[in-house]
C-alpha cells in the first residue's frame, strides 16, 4: 500500500458509488414524502359531553308541595289527623320508597294538620322554605357543618363582598324519602398516553413512565 497524494486519480467501483448515492437519495425521498410518518396516530377521544361539566344539583328542589299537580289540601283537608290504614284509601303515594333509617311513618316528618308543611318537635309547622330545620331535628351535627359551609354545595362567590354566595338545601342532593346519595355514572377515565390503545392495568403514576402496559 502506498499513500497516493493524487487522490483525484483514485478510482471507485461504480456499483459501490452508485449504491451509496442511491441510499442517500432514497433517504431524501423517505424524509420528504414522510413515509415513516410521526409514529402511531392519536387515540380518538370522544368530544367532551356537556353533562360532565354541568354544575346543576342531582335533584330539583320543589318550590311548593303538590302531588301530581294538585295541592295537598285537595285530599288532606287538614282539619283532622288522618285515621285508619292509608292503604285502604286508594293508591296514591305508593311509588314513594321510604328508606330513611328508622322512619316508617309519613307523619314523622309531614305535619298531620297542615299537609303542605312539616312537623317540628313541638308540633309547630316547618315551612318548605326552611326544610333544613326539619332535617336538623335528627342530623344536628350535619346541620351545624352545613351552616359553617363544611357540608353541602356552595357556588357563586366565596368573597361575599364581590357577589352572592349560593348555598343548596338538603333536598337539592338528598331524596328525603331515600336520602343516601345515589351512585352516578363516572365520566370517562383519562387517556393517559395518547399514543397507545392498550386498556387496563394502568395504575396511578403510569403517565410519568409511558404507561405500565
Amino acid at each position, binding site marked *: 500500500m502506498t499513500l497516493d497524494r493524487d487522490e483525484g486519480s483514485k478510482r471507485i*467501483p461504480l456499483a459501490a458509488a452508485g449504491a451509496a448515492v442511491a441510499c442517500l437519495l432514497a433517504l431524501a425521498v423517505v424524509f420528504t414524502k414522510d413515509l415513516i410518518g410521526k409514529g402511531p396516530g392519536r387515540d380518538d377521544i370522544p368530544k367532551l359531553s356537556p353533562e360532565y361539566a354541568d354544575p346543576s344539583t342531582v335533584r330539583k328542589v320543589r318550590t311548593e308541595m303538590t302531588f301530581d299537580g294538585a295541592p295537598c289540601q285537595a285530599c288532606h283537608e287538614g282539619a283532622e289527623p288522618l285515621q285508619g290504614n292509608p292503604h285502604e284509601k286508594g293508591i296514591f303515594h305508593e311509588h314513594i320508597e321510604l328508606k330513611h333509617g328508622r322512619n316508617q311513618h309519613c307523619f314523622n316528618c309531614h305535619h298531620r294538620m297542615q299537609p303542605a308543611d312539616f312537623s317540628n318537635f313541638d308540633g309547630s309547622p316547618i315551612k318548605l322554605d326552611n326544610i333544613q330545620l326539619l332535617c336538623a331535628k335528627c342530623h344536628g351535627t350535619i346541620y351545624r357543618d352545613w351552616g359553617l359551609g363544611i357540608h353541602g354545595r356552595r357556588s357563586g362567590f366565596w368573597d361575599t363582598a364581590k357577589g352572592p354566595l349560593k348555598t*343548596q338545601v338538603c333536598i337539592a342532593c338528598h331524596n328525603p324519602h331515600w336520602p343516601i346519595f345515589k351512585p352516578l355514572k363516572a365520566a370517562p*377515565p383519562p387517556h393517559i398516553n395518547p399514543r397507545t390503545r392498550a386498556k387496563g392495568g394502568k395504575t396511578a403514576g403510569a403517565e410519568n413512565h409511558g404507561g405500565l402496559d
Partner: protein
Amino acid sequence: MSEERKPGEPANEISRRAFLAALTTSAVTATAAALSPLKDVVDLPTLEEFLRLHYKELTPEDKKAILERIAAQVEKDYGVRPNVTDPPPIPGVEFGYALNIGRCIGCRKCVYACAKENNQSRNPQIQYIRVLQMRKGSIDVESAKTDYEGEVPKDGFYYMPVQCHQCRKAPCVKACPVQATWQEPDGIVVIDYNWCIGCRYCMAACPYGARRFNFEKPEIPKDELNPEMGYLSNRPRPKGVVEKCHFCLHRTRKGKYPACVEVCPTGSRKFGNLLDPDSEIANIIKTKRVYVLKEEVGTLPRFYYYFNL
C-alpha cells in the same frame, strides 16, 4: 487499491473526486429533506415576545400590551374575542382547599369541569385532576387505579382526587431553572407559559404528579373555548410548556369559587381564604380530622383532605 490505474481501464469505475461530489450532493439533499418540517414551524416568537422581560419586571403598560397581543392571537386562532385579564392577588387572602374523601364518589365531574374552564387540550388529553380509586382501609397510592369505569362509588373502595397542592415549600419552584414558575402572595403557584422552556424539571420535582406537559399543540374546539382568560391561568398554552392547576385564579381572585368546587355533585370540594377565621376552609381545619398527602416530604400543601368525623 494502491495500484495506479492506466488509461483505458474498464468503465465501471469512477474517480474518487466525482464520487465524493455525488455523495456530498446527495447527503445535502437528504439532510435538507430531513429538516424540511422546520418550514412548517409557525409559532416562532415575534421580536417583541423574544425581547420581553420576566413577568415580575413588567410595567403595567408592558402587561397591557402583552394581554392585547394574546387576545389578538386567540381571536385569530379561535375566532372568539377573549377577555384576557391578569387579576392581581388580593391582599389578606391566602387560598386553601379541602376535599372530603368520605363524600367523594369518584364521578370525575371535577376533571371535566376543570378541562372546560381552563381550556385544556382535548387531544392529546390534558387533565389537572387525577381521581385515584383505592381500597378502603389504607391510603395506598401506589396501587390506586385511575381507569375505573361505570357506576361509582364501587363497594369497598374510596376515591381521592389529586391535583396541584399549591405547596408552601414548593419543590417545583425550586427546580425551575428560569423562574418560569413561582409562588404568588396568595399562595397560588403560577406558571408563565411564555417563560417556560419546557425542561420538565418541575414535573420531576413534584411529589404529587400534578404538572402536565404539552407534548403537542393543545387542541381545543372553537365552540368550547372559555373566553374568560387569565394570563397566568387558562389562556391557550403553546406547545412545549408545562401547566397545572392554579385554583382557577382568574375566577378566585375575582371572588368566585373554582370550577371544580361548583361542579362537585356531592359537595366534597371546599375552598376559601385560610386567613379568614369564619371561612369554610378555616372551619374545616378547626373542627375536622384533616390530613395532607405525603406529609413526610415536607412540602406543606395548601390542599387538605378531611373526613366526615
